[in-house]
């Protein structure tokens, strides 16, 4: 029972916080702090995720966006120092994606966030409060999960709407 409990706690589908050493926990090159940017500095999601409302992908901001503020270090944070280094070197930060859908699925941010007017938090959770990068999706984009939400919100579950 204990073992099963532990397994569950560590499994990718567990709602509990995941220790960093788990292989399925996605590590980011820089421990980005959403909290500072959103709660303290008052950025909106789309200020950095530029295309979240208008395009297929929200896009993860990279040095072009970050350089606006972080050309020089703003704080003493060692994580920020890494970013400044990337910017200085003109190198892209190798962010890793956490939310992925397979090849045969069409997912459009515009369709959901803009047309469907779904708040970012519905899928991405209280991301604004996170002081460290999340290691796994808050809401896993599995077909069951998608279809459940579609059912509840009255969106179509017709296969070809999302599969091509």
């Amino acid at each position, binding site marked *: 029972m204990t073992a099963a409990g532990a397994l569950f706690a560590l499994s990718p589908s567990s709602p509990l916080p995941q220790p960093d050493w788990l292989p399925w926990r996605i590590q980011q090159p820089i421990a980005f702090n959403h909290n500072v940017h959103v709660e303290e500095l008052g950025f909106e999601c789309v200020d950095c995720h530029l295309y979240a409302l208008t395009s297929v992908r929200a896009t993860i901001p990279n040095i072009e966006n970050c350089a606006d503020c972080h050309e020089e270090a703003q704080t003493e944070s060692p994580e920020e120092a890494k970013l400044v280094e990337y910017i200085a070197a003109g190198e892209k930060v190798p962010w890793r994606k956490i939310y992925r859908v*397979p090849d045969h699925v069409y997912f459009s941010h515009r369709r959901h966030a803009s047309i469907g007017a779904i708040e970012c938090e519905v899928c991405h959770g209280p991301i604004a409060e996170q002081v460290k990068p999340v290691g796994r999706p808050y809401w896993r984009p599995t077909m069951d999960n998608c279809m459940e939400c579609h059912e509840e919100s009255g969106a179509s579950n017709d296969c070809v709407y999302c599969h091509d």
Partner: protein
Amino acid sequence: MIFERRDFLKLLGGTVGTVSLGSCGRFLVPDRMVEQALRGPGIERQVNTICGLCEGGCGVTVRLVDDLPVGLKGNSRHPLNRGGLCPVGQAGLEVLYAPNRLQGPLRRRPEGSFEATGWEEALTEIAKSLGDLQSSGNGRRAAFLHGEPGQLFDDLARRFMQALGSANVARRRGETVLPYRLAQGIDQVPGFDLANSDLVLSVGLDLFEDGAAPIHAVSAMVGSRDQANRASLIHIGSRLSPSATKAAERLAVAPGTHAAAVLGIAHVLVREGRYDRNFVAKHTFGFEDWTDDRGETRLGFRRLLLEQYYPDRAAQLSGSDPRAIIRIARRLARAERPVVICGGEATSTSNATWTTLAAHALNALLGAFDRPGGVALPSTVPLTPLPPFSAADGAPAQDGTGHSGIFAAPTDSTSFGIDPVEALAGADELDVLFLSGTNPVYDSPAGSDLKKALERIPLVVAFSSFLDETAAAADIVLPVSLFLETWQESTTPEGVAFSVLGVSQPVVSPLFDSRHPGDALLELARRAGGGLATALPWSSYEAYLKERLEGLRTSGQGSVISGSFEESWVHFLEERGWRFLESGDREAFWQGLARKGGWWNPVLARGDWNRMFRTSTGRYEFFSLELERHLEGLGRSAGESEPEPALRRGIESLGLVIEASVDEACLPHFEPPRLAGSGAAADALTLVPFRPMTGRGDIGVASPMLLEMYGYPVLSGWQTWVELAPETAHQLHLDEGDQVTLETEASPYESAFEAVVKIEPGAVAGAAHVPCGLGREGLGGAADGVGDNPVRILARDRDSVSGALATVSTRVRSTLIKKRARGGARPLVGGHG
């Protein structure tokens, strides 16, 4: 869209590091684009440009997702294709990404193989040779042969050679212009206003697949019209092409006998008096019998027709049906705006000039000149003229000092011109040869000779995207950027009635280390210095285009390609003498031109008969005085001094069998085609090579898709086939799917041509139609070893008058080598549902 799916990109992302550590350091897709595609927002963009894969120059719209091209479609506003795009154009991206494209300049090692080199080294070497020629005044020892579609490139190449002091420039083109020169006095193929015609008689040309702009033909005759006023098609030809199947009336004739059928039709028109008497009386010469300076009565076209080409005889000569000839003639007479267009197999024979003259004479009989839906001369594109310059040695090349270039017909030639490939193959005393956008070693019957000639020339520079058969025989191969990677232009295709100038802009930066040949020429001129550098001062081909096209703006004619409403508005204004001024300044105009993909002028200058008929009589000449002069000249140089015997002597030198009178030779008449090989053998077939839609543009074979659908009309792919009429196949005991060899008498067995039999009901008996474009070697792509190349076994013959190549020139025998293994025919069924 979700780009993670693209496992190629994942893979690529992973291998970028490896590749960059590798020797070349080139990425096929630049880093930036990979990054964009992986994480980009999936923003779509559409860019208009021009397809550069064949001479047509259709407008295409490129779909880019995060700056990566992912799709091509026809530009719905382009006047030529109006949204349509042929399979070759569709394959554009496959060609762009073709794994066998040349990745950088190649240089031949002394022992024969190629080594990779850089542009710097290659250009330096070429510039040095050019410099030597320039300084020694031996400019004429350089030659340039190209097949680029755009007029502007041709101008640049000519100027380049001229500055070098050479007249040796030639452009390989689709149709020969000689018949139009003889009849109309013009040095171009006139336009045929398909878009306003109600009946198009196509002589030998598979209008919807072949010709300079087949998609234009479809969109002009069918696509842009509604049911009620669509143009009907009448097809005269030996093959049952898809065009022929769609024709309202189809006349099957034996290969090379189109003229007989056409003259039969003319006979009916004349005998029934249903020709345009007004036009014939006012604007033609030689219809009725006429009296020459010496007072002798000469044969008129009318009498020739009535005496010689009554339908029964015409049908007998062409192996067709007299009733159909009469039916077609009456249909033409009934039509309001008929037009006759000639090409394809009809102009690939030894009698092509007369065939074209005959077909064009129908236009004259029908009064089709200068009226809507008839023959038109597209208005001149008002390009900025090139600034004058003086050549290095102070002597412009074609100055009448005797050196008129190797591509001009030699003085002892019986024909007006000479095929540039043959000329090149026979030329000695060349030091430098440039080849661009053409592959004569592969597609010309003189190819094998040319290959030997190329070995003799010390420096052969080939511009090519692939290491094709010609490039493989060159000394330096310079990779060419494709139409999606570079600035390029295309000018009005042959036979189109309005003038159009397409501008192709780079959509992606070149994937490989390639350049546009124009850019390379400019760079060479800079490096060679001297007269070359002053004559070609432009920094890039783009700058050259920009300067030349500025004339479009300042002329105030035509308009940038636009939507149908704007277009008709321009039309309306200009017809009433207004000028539609393009938006303000030079830069804005250039931007607009690039954004929309080109410029066109739909307005036809009407009523200008002096422009239309530039013959010595100022009329349409049924009886070609220029041809008479030429023939007489031939006779005189053979020692005859009197006009009549000289003419006779001249005709004899062409090797003809005209029995009635010498006058016939100067009139459109039927001349039996010369066919090499034994015509006596009962099983001899006339070999008719044709270009399928999928074979347009030599680089089309870089695309697996095109190869797979190569013979889609006969359900064939990845192979060469031979189309036989059912009765012919039956006689030869062949079935659908059998593998055969076709041999000429001359060809040794091992070079016999192999093909798979397809039975085409409706094809003419005794003809073997084979597609061109396959049987490639050494390209390194999917096309290698697929199918066979019929050009290989063609007898080398030419049009007696124009000197152009005749490809319908050979009789072959077929030998069964393998019975159909499986599949093949089924009992054919009609109807549907």
